[in-house]
């Protein structure tokens, strides 16, 4: 819900943006243009819809029409590939970062995507610098060219049950900043409560390899080696990651159930520490209500020097064919990545803003002061790394293969060392197979 004062402020901000943007001053949008927009996750309608409403209020010549949202990034990706073949692509699509490279490469070959970089170049340089950091722009780059404009961005964070942490002798204001201490705290939580699990790190059931990347990158490791053609996690970083995974289950009694059930269990107050995306912070906060005090803290980092975190979320790409629609789509992209739209996104989900001005005092600062849990994710932003895709276009299959091995390691069926060997070998085989 936006207050009128906020709206006025936003309108003023947009006004200045518009003045400094030469694109808007052209009478290009004389006739009405309708943009077909596709996004993933039906639940995300709660910010996509108000953002589109706001956009249409300001750009009366452009109409935004949403297609039925895809159930997940994977399904959205499939829809896009199918529609590329049948020439029924939407005009704008929000692609998950982990699938962006594969999608863009396919669409570039078919000449069905518009590069974003030249459009950005045409804008005023000062405006560009004021809104987008280089790190944020890099999120939408594929093979050195910018095709997508970052819309949602997240880094993994830790949710925890403050009561359970206190009971176990932990300090909710000073949560462990490395995994050894975090696991020790989880073991204490488990020891205190009979029907309570210490931690849930649902890597064994996660639909993509985000949580695995998180463990590798925080330990200073890399997903790919220097040649960028083979797995780079067959190092100590990978070994420690798998050892942590085994400890979650063996020592802290993490239940190996599907992540939906696991999240329900955390919300029911039966899990102490829970690693998850900040994108569901609003939802989880609302579901917990007064049942217990929900707190968040930054993701533990073992390698304080080199440790990084993978950026999840999605970027908007332009797949419109018609030049008038491409121009309109660019206006839409600028708006959704602007401070006003980002404020809506952050407040309804928990994502990080992808706009530099959004965190400022006229937008999100007051909200963050009132909701410190939402600020956590931004506190680790200097550790954010763009998604490093696997070569060969098999990333979905690679993750399914890796996930099975991780699952076996967590159950104790495969020792850490053997599991890591298998992961490296099988990932490499899949990268080379196409």
């Amino acid at each position, binding site marked *: 819900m936006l207050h009128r004062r906020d709206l006025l402020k936003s309108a003023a901000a947009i006004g200045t943006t518009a003045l400094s943007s030469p694109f808007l001053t052209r009478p290009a949008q004389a006739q009405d243009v309708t943009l077909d927009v596709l996004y993933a996750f039906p639940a995300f309608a709660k910010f996509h819809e108000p953002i589109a409403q706001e956009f249409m209020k300001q750009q009366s010549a452009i109409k935004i029409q949403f297609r039925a949202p895809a159930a997940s990034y994977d399904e959205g990706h*499939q829809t896009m590939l199918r529609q*590329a073949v049948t020439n029924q692509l939407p005009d704008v699509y929000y692609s998950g970062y982990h699938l962006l490279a594969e999608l863009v490469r396919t669409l570039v070959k*078919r000449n069905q995507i518009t590069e974003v970089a030249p459009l950005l170049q045409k804008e005023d340089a000062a405006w560009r610098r004021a809104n987008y950091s280089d790190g944020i722009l890099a999120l939408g780059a594929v093979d050195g060219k910018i095709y997508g404009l970052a819309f949602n961005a997240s880094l993994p964070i830790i949710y925890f049950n403050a009561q359970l942490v206190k009971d176990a002798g932990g300090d909710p204001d000073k949560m462990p900043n490395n995994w050894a201490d975090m696991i020790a705290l989880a073991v204490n939580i488990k020891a205190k409560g009979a029907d309570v699990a210490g931690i849930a790190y649902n890597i064994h059931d996660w639909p993509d390899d985000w949580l695995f990347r998180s463990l590798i990158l925080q330990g200073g490791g890399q997903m790919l080696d220097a040649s960028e053609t083979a797995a780079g996690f067959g190092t100590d970083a990978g070994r420690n990651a798998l050892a942590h995974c085994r400890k979650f289950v063996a020592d802290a009694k993490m239940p*190996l*159930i*599907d992540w939906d*059930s696991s999240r329900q269990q955390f919300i029911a107050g039966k899990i102490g520490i829970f690693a998850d995306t900040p994108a569901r912070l609003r939802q989880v906060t609302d579901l917990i209500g007064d049942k217990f005090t929900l707190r968040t803290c930054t993701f533990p980092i073992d390698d304080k020097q080199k440790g990084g975190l993978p950026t999840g979320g999605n970027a908007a790409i332009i797949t419109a064919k018609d030049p008038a629609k491409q121009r309109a789509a660019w206006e839409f992209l600028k708006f959704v990545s602007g401070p006003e739209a980002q404020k809506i996104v952050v407040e309804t989900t928990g994502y990080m803003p992808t706009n530099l001005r959004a965190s400022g005092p006229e937008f999100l600062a007051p909200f963050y002061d009132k909701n410190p849990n939402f600020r956590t994710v931004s506190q680790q932003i200097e550790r954010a790394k763009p998604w490093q895709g696997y070569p060969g*276009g098999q990333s979905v299959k690679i993750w399914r293969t890796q*996930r099975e091995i991780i699952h076996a390691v967590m*159950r104790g069926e495969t020792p850490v060392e053997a599991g890591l060997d298998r992961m490296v070998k099988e990932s490499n085989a899949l990268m080379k197979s196409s």
Partner: protein
Amino acid sequence: MNAIIAEITPLAAAPPASRQRWIERFAGLGFAAPAFILLVLTNLAPLAALAFLSFTNYELGALDFSFVGLKNFGTALQDPVIRRSITNTLLYVAIVVPGGVLISLLVAILIHQRKRTRSLYEVIYFLPVTSTLIAMATMWQFLLHPTLGLINQVLKGLGFAETAFLSEPRLVIPTLAAIGIWQLVGFNMVLFLAGLSAIPRDLYEAVDIDGASHPIDRFLKVTWPMLGPTTMFVTVTTFITAFKIFDTVAVMTRGGPGGASEVLLYAIYLEGFQYFHMSYAATLTLVFLAFTLVFSVLQTFVLDRRVHY
């Protein structure tokens, strides 16, 4: 027919008999044509396209493809994921076929003897057949929830340990099979009831006179042999239904935990619609078709010989 021939015959120069045969053949083809064209369009043509794709390396979204001969088939033979999915499917079939046939036979015999409550039981057992499996799968997921689900609450009340039925690799296929049986029993029961009603009463009277009055004797001497054709039909359809297991896996486990519930159709779905290896998925679909065909033909012929009609 006669009218047409009567009209044409006077004009015909050729001998009427051969001309009539020709016309009849032509008319016959004409009558068969609509069904044949439909069969070609909806079954044979897609099958041909499928077979064609399986010899290429086409991927969804690609602009071109080339022929790779039997490479896809070679890969499939050595693919551990495919092997595992075939094992999982066979395990599922091995539980569902005997379970689905025997339990429904038992239920049918029990219900057949009811007089007033028969239709009530029929409705109760038939309900799962009429419900959509997706909705039912969601319901099962709630029931089987590792801690909050009703089944685990009951187990806990009885002093057993909590069991994560869908997250335990050894239990996931038997659990899915139990749900599969639950869904099939009603339909098979109706078929068996029809079979039971068709058994003449005098056969039972005859074995009674011969001294076989114990229910088990009556079952073995009359009911079971007379149900032969029904049993064969039920077994074959149950087999095919079980082999096509997909929806419960897709909704409830997504192949997990750790691939323990990845069945053949789900593996095909992953290859085709998640990994976009269209050609490989086409190959696997051919393998799947061959499997069902071979098993069905085998079953029909083997059982056919033993069935007393």
